[in-house]
């Protein structure tokens, strides 16, 4: 455990110190930890997943180079776009870059190729053997992925708690970690779907492109949203120093994801094989519902994050660096923040307010990274706010 280097001199600074310490904001993560048991298990599953990934794609690289390349290029762009959205959602005490990367790689390599693929293939075969091939064809996606994939992707938050417990302090932290894990799972799975569609189409790239298009449209409200909800639910379930357990809510969120995934994967047989158009419309409607649920849960997780931001910046209000209104806007919802910026008046004033808020965000980040100490970087960040006003 580390200690805060700046001695608290008044209640504001003491609250700041407590907020930084309890939130883990600015904590520098060291990934290689020989005494950490989770580190070794994680490494093992990563290696197993990476080997399986090579076995899956390696033999196909030559024969299916075109669809694989198309899938990789397209879903990289797609993945980056969604990663940008997730970064925007992580606007208060952000998850360190290497933990985001860890969660992403967990979802893409370990969860997909190290865990879920083995379970899914075995379940497909068990269904065919015990329930018949037609039943397997109808229900295999609905009866495998909701369990295996939600658990495999969701383990990202368990892994991060194991290797960097100070990072996972709020449900929002779980939400962001889950979103990255789910996103990577989705991206890697999409490339597999493109490959499989091409394989089923005698290696032609047309079926692969069709699969890519469908996955793109329907994938927006996909794995990344479900896993975000699952991982936030896990944080509620176990609780942290900053987030008292809310076990009922946590279990509800963790159960909601496999149920939602089941309804998604089983839509075609559940609806009695509707026409393609009707199915597409239904799925688009369901996507919108998922997005609404996702946003609602995200908002629900935010209060502790906002309080941390408030505690870190309150001494700056006391010192006159920023105003109460600016702090209120910084920790407010998007609409309130936009209203605050618009209320400035002319274009230049609105721009100033926007820049001041952004610069204040930078200052909070520097203060947290310095663990509350008055460093050159903190002073510079503070001077930048002043510069934005002039």
């Amino acid at each position, binding site marked *: *455990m*580390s*200690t805060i*280097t700046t001695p608290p001199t008044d209640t504001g600074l003491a609250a700041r110190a407590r907020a930084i310490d309890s939130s883990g904001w600015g*904590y*520098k993560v*060291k990934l290689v*930890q020989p*005494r*950490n*048991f*989770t*580190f*070794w*298990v*994680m490494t093992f*599953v990563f290696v*197993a997943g990476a080997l399986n990934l090579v076995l899956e794609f390696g*033999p*196909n690289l030559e*024969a*299916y180079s075109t669809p694989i390349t198309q899938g990789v290029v397209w879903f990289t762009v797609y993945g980056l776009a969604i990663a940008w959205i997730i970064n925007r959602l992580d606007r208060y005490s952000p998850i360190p870059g290497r933990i985001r990367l860890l969660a992403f790689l967990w979802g893409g390599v370990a969860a997909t190729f*190290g*865990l*879920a693929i*083995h*379970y899914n*293939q*075995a*379940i497909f*075969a*068990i269904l*065919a*053997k*015990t329930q*018949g*091939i*037609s*039943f397997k*064809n*109808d229900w295999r996606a609905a009866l495998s992925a909701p369990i*295996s994939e939600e*658990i*495999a992707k969701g*383990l990202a938050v*368990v*892994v991060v708690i*194991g*290797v960097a417990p100070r990072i996972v302090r709020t449900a929002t932290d779980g939400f962001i970690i889950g979103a990255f894990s789910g996103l990577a799972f989705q991206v890697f799975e999409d490339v597999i779907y493109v490959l499989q569609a091409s394989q*089923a*189409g*005698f*290696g*032609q790239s*047309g*079926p692969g492109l069709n699969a890519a298009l469908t996955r793109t449209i329907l994938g927006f409200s996909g794995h990344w949203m479900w896993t975000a909800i699952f991982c936030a639910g896990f944080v509620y379930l176990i609780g942290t120093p900053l987030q008292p357990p809310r076990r009922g809510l946590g279990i509800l969120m963790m159960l909601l994801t496999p149920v939602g995934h089941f309804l998604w994967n089983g839509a*075609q*047989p559940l609806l*009695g*094989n509707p026409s393609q158009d009707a199915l597409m419309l239904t799925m688009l409607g369901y996507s919108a519902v998922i997005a609404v649920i996702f946003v609602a849960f995200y908002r629900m997780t935010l209060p502790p994050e906002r309080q941390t931001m408030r505690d870190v910046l309150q001494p700056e209000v006391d010192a006159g660096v920023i105003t109460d209104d600016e702090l209120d806007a910084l920790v407010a919802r998007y609409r309130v923040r936009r209203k605050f910026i618009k209320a400035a008046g002319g274009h230049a004033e609105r721009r100033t307010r926007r820049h001041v808020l952004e610069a204040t965000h930078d200052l909070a980040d520097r203060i947290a990274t310095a663990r509350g100490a008055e460093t050159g970087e903190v002073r510079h960040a503070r001077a930048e706010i002043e510069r934005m006003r002039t």
Partner: protein
Amino acid sequence: MTTTESTTTAEPPGEASPWPPPDDWVPVDERVLGFDKRTLWPGLVVLAVWAIFVHVVPAINDAIEFDNPIESGDVVDLGNEELTFVPSVDWNLEDGVLLDEEGIVPVTLGNGTALVTEEAISFDVLTSLWDGDAEALLDQVLDIDDAIETVIAADVQDSIDIVNADGVPGKLAPFRGTEEVGFVATYVFEDVNVNGAELDVGVSATVIAEPTADEEFADDVVAMLQSITYHPTAAEEDRG
């Protein structure tokens, strides 16, 4: 050392160290077998899931026999109940939907697959929309088929012409590996009605026989190959 000593002596006994420990410091009383015991439970959770997903569930699958023998009169639907093939009796159906066992989601034209096996022989059928003739499809399948890759010893023989039971022409290329032998056969059914559009549907059958395969099954294989036919429902109604 002087500083440390003076600091140590200045601290009353039992007080916490004034030095912040490194972030990865693991106190002695928090270790189990050298590991930080606080990191045990997440690792054990991951390990348990890995064991279930990678070993337990696949072991359950391995313990269940795939016993799905073809009976007389069974016909496999390769698409829309119009593209079909008749597997030989007593072969094991491992993939493919029988006409009288259709599920909720039917097999559509261009998406049908089937796999039947008999001890040391596998008969694997794949269908897809295909814009080209049977020979082009044969070349393509020889290029990409994983199953052939694993047995092939660069000894694909010249292709020969074949016909199905309705006289639709196809192509067949035998191959010989270091142990297994087999062939790829292809047909292309032209102007098939796929969701209202007239398209061509290609069918490939990849047959691989291990050295222990009994020659008596050769007749079964030929019969199955010829039984791959397309009978549009509308045409039957017209005939009716």
